[in-house]
C-alpha cells in the first residue's frame, strides 16, 4: 500500500537484520519447504495423471501408448455428454443469477440496518449451509421436492442449486460491503440522488467486484456439484458430473479423462477470475 520511504539501511546492518529475521521465520526451514512440496504433489498428482492420460491414444486408460487428442474429439461428439454439459451450464447460469441477486439483497439489508434483533443469527444462518454435510442437504432437498410434488425437470435442479450457492455468493459481497463507507450513500442522497440513483450510481459500482466474485464462486460451486444433482436430477436433466459418474461404471476411459479435464479447466479459469476480482484493489 504505502510506499517505503525509508532509505536502505547500511550494508552491515542489513546483513545482521536479515540473519536475525531468518532465525525467526518458520517459512525458511528446509523441512517445511519439503513438506509443502509433498502436500502439493499429493494434491495435484492425481489431477496431473488424469490430464496426461486424457491425451493417451490407447482406449485403456492406464496403458500409455502414444499422444493423441482423439478422445477430446470423441468427447465433444458425444451427444449425451453435450446435453449434460449444456444442462450444467444452464443450471449454473440460472442458479448463479438468482443466488447473486438474493445474496446481494441480503448483504445490503444486513449492512444497512445497524441493529435489529437476530442480526448476528441472520449472518450466521446465511453461511451455515456451507458447513451442513452435502448429503444431508441433498436428501432434504429431495424430500422437499417430492413432498410438494414439484417436478419441473431442470427447474428442480436450478432451485436446488440456487439455494446452496447463496452462501457462497454472499460471502464476497458482504466482505466488500463491510469495507465500504456507508456515508457514501448519504452523500449521494445529500447531492439530490433518489434512493435508486444512489444505489445505481454509487453503491452498485463500488460493490461490483464483490458481486462478480460472488457470482463466479456460485457458478463454480454449481458447475461442480455432484451429490445434490445426483439426488435431485431426473432422467432428462443429468448434469455433467453426474454423467461422468455414470460413465465410470463402465470403466475409466480416456474419454472420461478428457471430459473431466475440460470441466477442470473451466473451473480453474473461473476460480482464477474470482481470485483476480477479489484481490484488494491497489
Amino acid at each position, binding site marked *: 500500500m504505502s510506499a517505503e520511504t525509508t532509505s536502505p539501511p547500511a550494508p552491515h546492518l542489513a546483513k545482521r537484520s536479515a540473519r536475525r529475521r531468518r532465525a525467526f521465520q518458520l517459512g525458511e526451514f528446509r523441512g517445511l519447504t519439503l513438506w509443502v512440496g509433498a502436500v502439493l504433489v499429493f494434491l495435484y498428482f492425481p489431477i496431473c495423471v488424469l490430464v496426461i492420460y486424457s491425451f493417451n491414444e490407447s482406449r485403456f486408460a492406464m496403458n500409455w501408448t502414444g499422444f493423441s487428442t482423439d478422445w477430446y474429439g470423441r468427447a465433444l461428439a458425444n451427444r449425451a455428454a453435450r446435453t449434460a454439459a449444456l444442462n450444467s451450464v444452464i443450471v449454473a447460469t440460472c442458479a448463479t443469477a438468482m443466488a447473486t441477486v438474493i445474496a446481494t439483497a441480503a448483504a445490503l439489508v444486513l449492512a444497512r440496518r445497524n441493529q435489529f434483533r437476530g442480526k448476528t443469527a441472520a449472518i450466521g444462518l446465511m453461511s451455515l449451509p456451507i458447513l451442513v454435510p452435502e448429503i444431508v442437504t441433498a436428501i432434504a432437498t429431495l424430500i422437499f421436492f417430492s413432498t410438494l410434488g414439484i417436478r419441473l425437470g431442470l427447474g428442480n435442479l436450478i432451485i436446488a442449486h440456487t439455494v446452496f450457492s447463496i452462501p457462497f455468493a454472499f460471502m464476497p459481497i458482504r466482505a466488500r460491503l463491510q469495507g465500504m463507507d456507508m456515508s457514501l450513500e*448519504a452523500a449521494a442522497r445529500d447531492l439530490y440522488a433518489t434512493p435508486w440513483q444512489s444505489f445505481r450510481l454509487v453503491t452498485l459500482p463500488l460493490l461490483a467486484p464483490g458481486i462478480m466474485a460472488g457470482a463466479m464462486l456460485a457458478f463454480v460451486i454449481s458447475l461442480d456439484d455432484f451429490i445434490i444433482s445426483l439426488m435431485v436430477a431426473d432422467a432428462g436433466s443429468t448434469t455433467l458430473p453426474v454423467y461422468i459418474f455414470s460413465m465410470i461404471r463402465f470403466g475409466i476411459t480416456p474419454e472420461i479423462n478428457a471430459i473431466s479435464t475440460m470441466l477442470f479447466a473451466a473451473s480453474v479459469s473461473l476460480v482464477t477470475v474470482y481470485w483476480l476480482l477479489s484481490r484488494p484493489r491497489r
Partner: protein
Amino acid sequence: MLDRHDEQGHDNAPPAISFRDVVKIYGAGAAAFTALHGADLDIRDNEFFTLLGPSGSGKTTLLRLLAGFEVLTSGTIHLFGAEIRDLPPERRPVNTVFQHYALFPHLSVAENVAFGLKRLRRPAAEIRSRVAEMLALVHMEHLADRQPGQLSGGQQQRVALARALAPEPKVLLLDEPLSALDLKLRQAMREELQRLQRETGITFVFVTHDQDEALSMSDRIAVLSEGRIQQIGTPDDLYNRPYNRFVADFIGDTNLLEARVLRRSGDEVNLRLSGGVEVTAAAAPGIGEGAQVTVSVRPENVVLTGAEAGSVRARLVGKTFLGASSLLTLALDDASRVTVRRDNRMGHPEDPETGAEVGIVFAPGSLRVLLP
C-alpha cells in the same frame, strides 16, 4: 431549561433555519436514548453559525435532522419558513461536508463535484463551467482528473467543499470538517472557510468540539451539552457573558467561586464570597436574595495588587510560565483557589515569589453569576 437568551438584536427577517422543541430519541424500549431534549434554535440567513459541544452532545444529530438522514421524534424544523419534516434528503436545498469527506472513490474529482448538478439535471455546459468555477474557488483546478484516493487529506477536504457548494445550496452543513487535518492546515482552512462563506453568501452551519475553532470563525455559536442547548450567542457573549456553569467552564479558562446573594438591585447583585469578601456581579435571571450561587471570573480579569484595603487577601502558591503570559495560582483564606493571568510584557512588574501574601481585585463588571 429556562428562557434561553440570545443577546443579539432580533431583526425581523425570517430565520433561515428554525428548530422548535426538537426531540430526537434513538432506538426504542429499553434501548431508547434521547439525543436531543427539545432544542429551540434560530439560524439567520447568511450566517456562519457553529454548533459547539463535547463529544456525544448531539451536534451531529442536529445536522442529520437538518439534512434529512434522521427522522424527528417530535418538534418541527423550518427551512426558510417551510416545514421540512416530510422532505427526503434529496429534496432539501441543503448540502453537507461530511466528517470523513465521503468522496465517491470511483469518480474523478471533477465528476464528484458535478454529481449534484447532474442529479439536478442542469445543462451539460452549465455543469462544466460550474465545476470549473468551484474547483477554482477551492484552488483545485489542476487536480480535476485525479481520483479521490490520490489526494491528500487537505485536498480531499477542498473537493468535498467544492462538491457541496456546487449545487448552490441555501445552507451548507459542515460536520467537524477540519478534525482530520493537521494543525497548520486546520488554521489555514479556518480562514479559507470564512472566505468561502463571505464570497458565497451561503448560510454555514458548522459543527465542532474545538472552542478555538468556534470562537475564531463564527458569527454566532450554540453551545450544546447532553442533548440540550446551553446558550446561543456571539463568541463575545459566550466568553464574556456565559450563562451557566457549563458554558463558563467549557469555553476558555475560568475561576468558579461560591457566593451568597446579599442584595439584588436591577441587573446587579451584591454577593458575599465564601471567604467573606463582598463583591458586585452581573445578575442572572431568577436569582433572588439569599440564594447560594456560583460566580465566574476569567483569569485575565483578576488583578494582582498589594495586600491593601479593598482587595481580597490571597497567597501565591504556584506559577506557570506560558510565554506571552503566566498563570499564577492563588489560595484564598478559605482555601479556595483562584487563577490569575498576567501579561509578560517587557517592563511589567516582576511576579511575586511563591508563598508571598498578595491582594487581588476583580476588574469591574467581570464577575458573572451563573445558573447551575
